[in-house]
């Protein structure tokens, strides 16, 4: 009995010692999207700086925002998307970046930084990590079988009920991200995609209610696998996700051939950005981490892995040719002009939006 007690005491003591040792070690707590980095970058960062990375992932902006708004999240670097970033800045969630600690800012791409300023006026709080578009991902063979030779280059493919009806049997997924899907639909019916007017939102909603009977699922993460497995043949999806599905299908050699297209009517352009919460404990380490990610060869490695475009101009010469030359990742000038961004929704507008969206999803 006594020996047991002794060993217990020894265990507790060693745990306490180990705990204090950890507390002294330099570390940075990073909260990023799932499947969104080449993990070797984290190991390289630790090797170079001696700062340990505690890495954690999420799969929706809503979850990130709820943790940030509750306060005391314990994270030092987080990666919110544009409109969420804007609202969180307004709520006082973030601290201003100390640009003297971020010399690699000179590598950034002005075109992206300028657009990001819509969410972060003066670029004071955030640095772009990756950006992309929300377009159509589809299974080439199944869609061809359903629609014949209709060219897949327009939202008509999905939003015209007669097309959606033909696609029903092979599976339609709608991205469950109401702010983006509504902006796209409002743009499609000729309204301002950034409108927050109830009547415009309702006009956007009508696009979806017309095709609701033919939609199989509404989700924003499981659709990657569904598309790769052939359970879904067409989806509104994020560029990198669809390319991941394409790769997974190619790896599985299951005969599923997937493509992504930016429709000619234009679409939503989003930015995922690095920011530091106001209550972060390891502020210096957070700056070091962000600065490291702005090194051209490092962020190029990340882009090569996740297949998203980044906001770092200097990195472009390190990015794989097939990604740089893929117009669905780095679109042409002409297409880029048609891409739009949206400002954040206020609480009342958000309620109208999500109410219409829930109604659509549940069919009630």
């Amino acid at each position, binding site marked *: 009995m006594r020996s047991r007690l002794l060993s217990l005491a020894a265990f507790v003591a060693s745990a306490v010692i180990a705990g204090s040792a950890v507390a002294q070690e330099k570390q940075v707590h990073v909260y990023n999207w799932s499947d969104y980095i080449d993990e070797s970058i984290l190991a390289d960062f630790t090797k170079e700086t001696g700062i340990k990375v505690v890495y954690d992932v999420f799969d929706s902006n809503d979850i990130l925002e709820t943790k940030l*708004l509750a306060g005391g999240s314990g994270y030092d670097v987080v990666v919110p998307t544009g409109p969420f970033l804007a609202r969180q800045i307004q*709520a006082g969630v973030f601290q201003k970046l100390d640009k003297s600690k971020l010399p690699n800012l000179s590598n950034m791409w002005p075109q992206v930084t300028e657009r990001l300023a819509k969410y972060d006026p003066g670029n004071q709080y955030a640095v772009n990590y990756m950006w992309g578009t929300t377009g159509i991902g589809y299974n080439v063979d199944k869609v061809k079988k359903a629609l014949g030779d209709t060219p897949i280059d327009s939202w008509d493919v999905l939003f015209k009920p007669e097309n959606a009806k033909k696609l029903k049997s092979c599976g339609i997924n709608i991205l469950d991200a109401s702010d983006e899907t509504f902006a796209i639909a409002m743009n499609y019916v000729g309204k301002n995609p950034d409108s927050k007017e109830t009547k415009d939102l309702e006009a956007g909603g009508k696009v979806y209610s017309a095709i609701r009977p033919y939609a199989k699922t509404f989700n924003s993460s499981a659709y990657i696998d569904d598309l790769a497995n052939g359970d879904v043949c067409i989806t509104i999806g994020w560029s990198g996700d669809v390319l991941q599905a394409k790769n997974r299908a190619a790896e599985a050699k299951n005969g599923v051939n997937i493509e992504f297209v930016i429709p000619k009517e234009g679409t939503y352009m989003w930015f995922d950005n690095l920011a530091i919460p106001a209550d972060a404990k390891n502020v210096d380490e957070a700056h070091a981490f962000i600065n490291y990610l702005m090194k051209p060869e490092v962020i190029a490695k990340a882009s090569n892995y996740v297949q998203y475009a980044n906001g770092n101009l200097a990195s472009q010469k390190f990015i794989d040719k097939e990604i740089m030359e893929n117009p669905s990742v780095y679109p042409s000038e002409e297409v880029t002009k048609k891409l739009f961004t949206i400002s954040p929704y206020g609480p009342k507008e958000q309620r109208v939006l999500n109410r219409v969206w829930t109604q659509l999803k549940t069919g009630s």
Partner: protein
Amino acid sequence: MAVAQNSDGQGKGGLGRVFVVALPYLWLVLFFVAPFFIIFKISLSDTAIALPPYTPVFEGFGAIQDFVSQLDIENYIFLTDDPLYVKAYLSSLRIAAISTMLLLLIGYPIALAMARASASIRPTLVMMVILPFWTSFLIRVYAWIGILKPDGLLTLLLQAVGLMGPEDQVQIFRTDTAVFIGIVYSYLPFMVLPLYAALEKMDNTLLEAANDLGCPPLKAFWRITFPLSLPGVIAGSMICFIPITGEFVIPDLLGGADTLMIGKTLWTEFFGNRDWPLASAVAVILLILLVIPIMIFQNQQKKVA
């Protein structure tokens, strides 16, 4: 003698007894009443783009009057205005009621068979009912995705035995049927164990007597076994019905976009709309709805005791 013992107990163990009685109440206050009042308080405030995302925030007792004057019940009025919430509550209660019936229909024969099995294998049977708990609940629900999805195990099985053509696929995943399957599977032990406990302690000589007096087995079941197992039936039903009503994980993973349950609605309010006050109001009403079955349960327990 009895009197002496009694006064003795009060003299020496008085404080100890108070402590023992107070402990569960303390637990209840700390982990139920206090959180409930925090939720209730938030449900009376308004959303704001701030940290935390609602106003007014309770800051010290000096401002208490000011604080109270800013509270209002508009969130509750909103809940009754919009048919979505009423529909979601009703749909949750419907799904919980149907699931509980199914659980009873499936769980009762299992419990009865266990109780009638020879005493030597009963512990093994109970063990088998409990065994699934050794695997994470979430993983077990995910396993059902693998079984039910269109190209999943069920389709493969039906195709292999020839009940389905090679082109056909089971269309269960992401429907209400899948939700029922997931719920019945997950909650079955919670139904079987109370039923088994009630049936196991039943006096079998009663059935022998019925048999001797010429009562057919089925009638004996309805007149003796079932009434005697009623406490188990009610306990099992309540233990299942109450959490199923607020279930979120199973409908989210297995249900379709049109599966409407209050747990999912609450999630949207909290995460999608960032409307903590309204989400809190939804939670308070859910609790009030569930207090009724809980009280029935308590009443029944008292009768048994």
